[in-house]
């Protein structure tokens, strides 16, 4: 018992680590499931990164749509990233982070376009930024914001 009390910070650290791992994996799996499901639903809505020229009379309305998401990683992944910083190489912990953030942002943009009855999104752009306390400082909160924006085109009914 005394050993546990003496090394209390180590015990807390390990506990948080396990909590982060378990809860983090569950949350991530759930998020991915939701992403895949919504991607299926919104699959029919075309998105292109190119500009588009449409023939006269086809376009009823063009509107800017955006979608954004801020996702953060769990404690366990943060430890992995710290260790990676020593050895270099691909940081697997952050890959899912940015992937989720971007796909979520695109889905929200598509949803916003669908809500307006759009048939297509053109000239889509994606931006990613790291935010949290002191994003460039030492005590960072490893969270990432992704924005997806494009022009939603509502077509004239044929």
């Amino acid at each position, binding site marked *: 018992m005394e050993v546990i009390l003496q090394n209390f910070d180590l015990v807390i650290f390990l506990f948080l680590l396990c909590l982060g*791992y378990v809860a983090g994996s569950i949350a991530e799996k759930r998020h991915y499931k939701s992403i895949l499901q919504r991607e*299926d639903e919104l*699959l029919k809505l075309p998105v292109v990164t190119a500009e588009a020229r449409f023939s006269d009379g086809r376009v009823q309305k063009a509107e800017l749509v955006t979608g954004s998401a801020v996702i953060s990683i769990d404690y*366990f*992944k943060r430890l*992995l990233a710290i260790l990676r910083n020593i050895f270099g190489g691909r940081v697997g912990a952050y*890959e899912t982070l940015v992937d989720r953030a971007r796909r979520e942002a695109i889905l929200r943009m598509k949803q916003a376009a669908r809500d307006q009855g759009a048939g297509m999104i053109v000239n889509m752009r994606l931006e990613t930024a790291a935010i949290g306390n002191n994003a460039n400082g030492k005590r960072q909160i490893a969270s990432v914001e992704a924005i997806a924006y494009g022009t939603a085109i509502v077509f004239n009914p044929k």
Partner: protein
Amino acid sequence: MKFTPKRLDGNVNVSRTHPLAELSWLLGGLILITALVFFALGYSADWAATKAPISVENWLGRQALSHFPADENPALKQQLQALLDSLPADSPLHQYNFRVFLSPSDEVNAVALPGGNIVVFSGLLKQIESENELAMILAHELGHFAHRDHLRGLGRGLGLAVAATLLFGQDNAASSLVSNTLLTFQLRYSQTQESAADSFGLDLLNQRYGHVGGSTDFFARMAKKAGGKIPYLLASHPHPEARIEQLEGLVAKKGYKVEMTYPLAEGLRTVGQ
């Protein structure tokens, strides 16, 4: 232009390695490298400590003393002198200008500081009942000086801290993780030093009195209060029972005699009251 939506299976943007596998690889590598650096630094620091001249140590000693509020005690110095006189003439310990201080603190401890300064705490003195026990403790501290233990501890710890800060930066999480883990191993190292000092102390006790009566009395008294063995795994001193065992083993091996002990000198006994 035709649009054909395609559903994708699998995710190219995510690596396949399982996070736990990655963690074990990274952690394993880190532990390996830290262990290598630790041992390398340890050996070089040890080597440097044995080569440090006594004048450097005396200078360090003057710095260290300023941290302990204590007065020089002539009665203790007398006891120490008797031990020093029992040393062989070519012992490097004669180069030190030893001073013995008595600190009013109730802590049951005695500490060897660089430069030939020994500080004995009142709490320790109160626990001592015979002159031989005191001689054993002073001889133990002399053992530390003979092995340059205080310099070794200083060199190693400092070297590691400097290396970690150079590599990782001052406030980096990795740096503090590494330093905190290494600190526990540092304590383990000094347990070996303590055992070596015990052995030296036993030999010196025998030189002084012709027998080793009283060498284990103090530890036996401490052992009753010590409690379990587990906290001592990572403490700076070995468990009192372990020390008694080692001493008794040495007594048997070297064939030392055990005879009556002398009571504590008048001036030192009153400190306890």
